[in-house]
């Protein structure tokens, strides 16, 4: 019988589990031993069991272009991604450091603007940011935290170093899949999980609930918490419902809420109107309040900004927090850490060329075929160019796009992002992965143990977004001490 590892290669990138085809890293030793003890048909059976569980649990996501097809099963690879807890603890520290600095920066931007006045960032960069909301100037959310929930994307380059690719500070999604992936793994590999010391992740909903309680308007002992969803056709609706259910919070749509003349937010219940204290909103700023932002928004709640500014309701994330979720602002995060915290960044940025900077612009234009070029404000992997994978025609077309709006584009070297063994037609093959840990900040700061590992299922592909053919893996942070 042929081995499932046949022709496995670790030559093209850093592999998270394997030194080489034959030698697992110490942290994945237990898993590899276990996999090798299974027959090929057993592995297939586990895969089928996982797919069945996903169908039955109804873990789905939506692709916007799939008309009439609301749910699509979540593509899941049963082989987990593994990391040593000793490495993880450093990353965790780095993530806390980063979000703390980012929140200092957002407070500063809507306050005194020392960072700009001290010449650390051009004022032009802030003023031209789509996500800078002048309506938020002067606001002081509780604990001075604007971005309460952050999903930071990490990738490991061939040099073995973990880099921060981006900070998602608007409405980061994926945490429910992280949680469900572990549930599935427990169903599929119960015997394996018992013998390995994996850090648990299932306290996230409790932590989220505590964080949201901690930002409620003061003097409210038991705040009423609601998750505001754009509705049942949103691609992340599953997650909104899941988190509301896990927290025991209300899941509301814009039309369930009303802001009265007293500038308080109420929801329409069978008993009449009931006051809402904290809203975990999963709607972009643009659609939040038609009185202030997009007038045509039917998803939001007229008057919500009034209520927020009056301090009668907490919004997580705070409106305007997205100003730091901009790929141009991203380039300045290491400087923010030094400036606000007087510390050296623990996690490095990917070198970034800003097309708004004339020198950088020249460099990007000259090296388009080698670089990854991204728009500053898109998410979901849309509208980007992966130079080495693009045709000459695509590169030429993208050149024009950048020329038209240089402020909105950044270039980064194409990283050889790390791989992990992934089950492909009964065999293990290396596939590129990233990692999205979730960080909560309110009164305290919390980081998930690991995060959501996304995997580019197409051979050679570097794009891990679920909307672009990506899947996910369970992520194990293993405590090796005491093993």
């Amino acid at each position: 019988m042929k081995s499932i590892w046949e022709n496995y290669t670790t030559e093209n990138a850093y592999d998270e589990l394997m030194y080489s085809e034959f030698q697992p890293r110490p942290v994945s030793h237990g898993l590899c031993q276990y996999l090798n003890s299974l027959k090929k048909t057993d592995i297939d059976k586990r895969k089928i069991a996982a797919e069945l569980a996903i169908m039955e649990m109804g873990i789905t996501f939506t692709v916007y272009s799939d008309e009439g097809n609301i749910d699509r099963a979540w593509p899941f690879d049963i082989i987990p991604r593994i990391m040593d807890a000793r490495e993880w603890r450093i990353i965790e520290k780095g993530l806390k450091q980063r979000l703390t600095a980012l929140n200092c920066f957002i407070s500063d931007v809507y306050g005194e603007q020392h960072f700009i006045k001290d010449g650390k960032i051009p004022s032009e960069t802030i003023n031209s940011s789509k996500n800078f909301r002048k309506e938020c100037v002067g606001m002081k959310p509780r604990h001075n935290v604007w971005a309460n929930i952050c999903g930071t994307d990490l990738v490991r380059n061939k040099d073995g170093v973990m880099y921060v690719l981006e900070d998602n500070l608007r409405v980061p999604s994926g945490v429910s899949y992280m949680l469900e992936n572990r549930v599935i793994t427990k169903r599929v590999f119960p015997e394996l999980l018992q013998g390995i010391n994996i850090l648990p992740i299932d306290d996230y909903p409790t932590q989220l609930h505590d964080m949201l309680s901690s930002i409620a308007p003061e003097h409210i002992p038991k705040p009423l918490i609601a998750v505001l969803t754009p509705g049942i056709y949103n691609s992340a609706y599953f997650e909104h419902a899941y988190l509301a259910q896990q927290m025991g919070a209300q899941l509301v749509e814009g039309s369930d809420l009303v802001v009265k003349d007293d500038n308080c937010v109420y929801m329409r219940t069978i008993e009449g109107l009931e006051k809402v204290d904290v809203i975990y909103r999963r709607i972009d700023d643009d659609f939040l309040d038609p009185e202030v932002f997009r007038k045509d928004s039917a998803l939001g709640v007229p008057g919500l900004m009034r209520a927020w500014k009056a301090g009668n309701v907490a919004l997580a994330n705070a409106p305007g927090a997205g100003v730091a979720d901009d790929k141009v602002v991203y380039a300045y995060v290491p400087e923010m850490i030094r400036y606000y915290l007087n510390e050296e960044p623990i996690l490095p940025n990917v070198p970034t060329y800003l097309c708004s900077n004339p020198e950088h612009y020249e460099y990007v234009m000259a090296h388009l075929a080698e670089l990854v070029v991204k728009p500053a404000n898109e998410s979901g992997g849309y509208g980007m160019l992966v130079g080495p994978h693009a045709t000459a025609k695509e590169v030429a077309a993208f050149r024009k796009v950048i020329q038209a709006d240089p402020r909105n584009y950044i270039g980064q070297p194409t990283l050889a992002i790390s791989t992990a063994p992934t089950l492909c037609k009964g065999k293990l093959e290396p596939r590129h992965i990233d990692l999205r840990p979730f960080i909560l900040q309110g009164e305290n700061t919390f980081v998930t143990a690991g995060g959501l590992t996304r995997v580019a299922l197409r051979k050679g592909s570097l794009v891990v977004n679920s909307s672009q053919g990506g899947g996910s893996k369970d992520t194990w942070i293993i405590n090796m001490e005491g093993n």
Partner: protein
Amino acid sequence: MLSRSAERLYWLARYMERTENTAKVVSVYMNLLMDLPKGVEMGWQQLLRINGAEAEFYEKYKSAGERNVIRFLLSDESYMGSLFSSLSAARENIRTTRELLPDEAWEQVNELYLFAKNDLETVSNRRSRVLFLKKILEGCQRFSGLLSGYMSHHHPYRFIRLGRNLERADMTSRILDLASLLLSESRSDELRQYETILWMNILTALNALLMYRQHVRSRVKGDDVLSYLLLDKDLPRSVTRCLVEISDCINQLPNNDALSDRVQELEDYVQAIDIREATQLQLRVILDDLQNKLGGLHGHIADNWFSRIMPE
């Protein structure tokens, strides 16, 4: 609780009940036809009458044979009253109220939906249809059971009970309507001989045969069965019992002022029905009227709790 959530839970329960009722009626009807001799004038079109769906059926199909009627009632996605449409609607309602229900509730409905979707084509074959219907019935029962056992019996649960019992009362009245139609003067002598079988099947369709025997302690005959299914206070699927449940829920829900009286009126109306005095024709008029009144009650419930426009 949110008005929108109350509405979705109410409809979730109605659609689950409708799914179960459709499965039950079709499987009992198959049994009945097997008991009756060939040539007795009971075709498949009677099943369409129960659902009041004859007009819609004949827009799509020419003849009301077994194959067409079964397809229409069980698997036709374009007919809103089909079993599969009901189950799909139930799933859509639970998908959007998951946060209020135990995990298992969603998984149960989702699994049942996936099973039905997968096996939908097998219903044209009688043997696999029997298995299909059995699984659907079991799934619906499991759903009710786990809600009863896992969920607090608070407001959300009351809206589920409300929806379930309104749908149930409606279905029971439809089945009685059909029975009285079959007993009308025009029936043949041959069918008359099989009257007991017919009534036993009606009782079976409403899971009431054993209870009837224990409670009524007489042989199965038309007037007694009709009275029992309309007026008994304890039988889960009798119209009166359903109204008791509805009334109980309404009285425990907030802002119920006008509704309590309306249910009471309806209960009084049903209790005043005297089967023995009514001719078959009068009975059908009464049952028709009852269905309209149930529809009216639904309207009041919706206005009272589901409406998005709230009094200040």
